[in-house]
């Protein structure tokens, strides 16, 4: 007989994850109550409370982490010490990712209250959004590979259904099926790489894997493992030969979901890749191959984006290009470069989230995504267009936006690591990308061809969210110190603090 007190000590979850999971699982009941009792805004209120509580609990966890010995919090699931069983190992990097996820999730939830108002099946929608956020938070906080895989599939499953959410049209269904087949195949590659890791070391715990594989002899199995890992994580994070699902799935999803997918889901894939690569291998093992992938990703995505006529599809290609910039930082192998990666993850979640939300407002009001038919819309929706401009300028890396800061650090770190060619490729791509961002701006403010076009400004809540994000982009562009210090701590925890991490987890 187990008394409830000791049970609550055995089953522990990190607070943000518990909030999101319980919130997501309670939402169907709340939705049912809201429909039966006819209370109008109960679901939205619950969604607001849960996402705000997730943001608050990430902050609480951060305070807890500061006090923890060795700056690593270990939360065990069944009361077993780390090498046995699943656990969560929370370090500065996990908290940083969790904070980015909760922040963007909160803003997107606010936006979707108005945007999704006219749709049916809202209970399912909000449940899936919360579960997707829970999956991403779980990935960020996971302490062993299998816990990561479970939350990976949770994130994946909810995002497949969310992409195909508007199932009465053919586009989302087709995009959703492509996404599912490619991502599930990648999941199988991930499971295969896990089984090889297990065969080599007999464990899946991150700290023990790092302790036993770091600096080991290069066997052929290590190369098999590396390629399986790159395929497994690369499909979700849209590295170029594996990106083909993204330009279909991101535009076809409802706009708040596009913002979440582009802003944070693909970055969570990149986070998984970065963490696992730095845990298992020495940086000079993967440096050149990741650098080559970075150049390929940037160049191909930027060139293809030039050809797009669909505003959301153009933004989706731009997301792939941004992943390419982040890979530059991954390939450097220094704490400075990884700091650039995670700074760009946060900045990109703000900028791309805002770009998709503003584009979503435009699509919501006009009902079209075609750039030719959107000519002159900017004059009728001044606030939304203004925020979209700031987002695009930030994505292009114009000074005084936060995109400039993180790109500068990324390119600088490539030079610091002795790969000047990589920095040159990055700068050239950055210049090329301005071409299509400016094309969107030109289309939006030029004279409308159709004189009878009548469009109103988007609803106040949607405008308020995008304006808030625009203000943050500029504020963090002019005063980046707080985010930089957080990102520095996060990257040091991953790159420099490996032995401390191992020591804190394995006593």
């Amino acid at each position, binding site marked *: 007989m187990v008394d409830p007190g000791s049970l609550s000590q055995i089953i522990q979850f990190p607070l943000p994850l518990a909030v999101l999971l319980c919130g997501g699982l309670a939402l169907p009941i709340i939705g049912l109550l809201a429909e039966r009792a006819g209370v109008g805004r109960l679901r939205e209120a619950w969604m607001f409370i849960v996402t705000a509580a997730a943001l608050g609990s990430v902050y609480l966890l951060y305070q807890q982490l500061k006090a923890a010995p060795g700056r690593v919090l270990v939360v065990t699931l069944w009361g077993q010490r780390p090498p046995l069983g699943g656990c969560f190992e929370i370090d500065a990097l996990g908290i940083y990712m969790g904070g980015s996820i909760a922040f963007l999730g909160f803003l997107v939830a606010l936006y979707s209250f108005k945007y999704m108002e006219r749709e049916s099946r809202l209970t399912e929608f909000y449940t899936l959004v919360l579960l997707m956020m829970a999956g991403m938070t779980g990935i960020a906080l996971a302490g062993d590979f299998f816990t990561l895989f*479970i939350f990976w599939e949770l994130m994946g499953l909810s995002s497949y259904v969310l992409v195909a959410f508007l199932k009465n049209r053919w586009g989302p269904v087709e995009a959703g099926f492509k996404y599912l087949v490619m991502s599930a195949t990648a999941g199988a590659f991930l499971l295969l790489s896990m089984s090889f890791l297990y065969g080599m070391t007999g464990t899946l715990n991150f700290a023990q894997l790092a302790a036993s594989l770091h600096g080991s002899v290069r066997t052929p199995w290590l190369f098999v493992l590396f390629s399986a890992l790159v395929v497994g994580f690369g499909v979700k994070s849209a590295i170029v030969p594996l990106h083909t699902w993204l330009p279909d799935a991101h535009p076809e999803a409802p706009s708040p979901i596009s913002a979440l997918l582009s802003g944070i889901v693909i970055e969570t894939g990149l986070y998984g890749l970065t963490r696992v690569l730095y845990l298992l291998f020495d940086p000079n093992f993967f440096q050149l191959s990741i650098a080559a992938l970075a150049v390929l990703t940037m160049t191909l995505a930027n060139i293809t984006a030039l050809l797009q006529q669909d505003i959301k599809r153009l933004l989706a290609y731009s997301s792939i290009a941004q992943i390419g910039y982040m890979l530059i930082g991954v390939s450097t192998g220094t704490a400075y470069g990884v700091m650039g990666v995670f700074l760009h993850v946060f900045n990109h979640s703000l900028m791309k989230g805002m770009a998709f939300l503003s584009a979503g407002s435009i699509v919501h009001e006009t009902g079209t995504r075609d750039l030719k038919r959107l000519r002159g819309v900017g004059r009728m929706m001044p606030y939304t267009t203004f925020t979209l401009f700031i987002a695009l300028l930030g994505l292009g890396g114009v000074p005084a936006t936060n995109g400039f800061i993180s790109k500068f650090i990324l390119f600088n770190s490539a030079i610091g690591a002795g790969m000047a060619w990589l920095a040159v490729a990055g700068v050239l791509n950055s210049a090329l990308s301005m071409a299509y961002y400016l094309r969107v701006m030109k289309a939006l403010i030029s004279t409308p061809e159709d004189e009878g076009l009548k469009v109103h400004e988007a609803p106040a809540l949607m405008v308020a969210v995008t304006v808030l994000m625009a203000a943050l982009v500029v504020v963090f562009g002019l005063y980046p110190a707080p985010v930089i210090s957080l990102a520095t701590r996060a990257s040091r925890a991953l790159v420099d603090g490996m032995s401390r991490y191992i020591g804190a987890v394995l006593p």
Partner: protein
Amino acid sequence: MDPFTPFIVSVALLFIIGLGCLMVKRDMVRLLIGIEILFNAANLNFVALSLQTKGFIDPFAHSIVMMAIVLDGTVIAVGLAMALNVYKHYKTLDIRKLRRLKW
């Protein structure tokens, strides 16, 4: 001969069969079966390697395989639901007809 060689070889064969199925087949349900074969190859690898490391059969790998079977089952279930929706719109399960979204 290393006692694990037959297992590793059959895992590799299953993986190649699964990938081949994904590349060659046109029917959506068969694509999902291909994904299932890939997952099962990885599961088989786990079970085979659970003998290797500690000198006894490690229950850790078996618990992982149990969970992984559940996870890929749910993925396939969502995939079948999506194939049904595709059929409603396209009146076919041929994957080559899913080309209306231009690249």
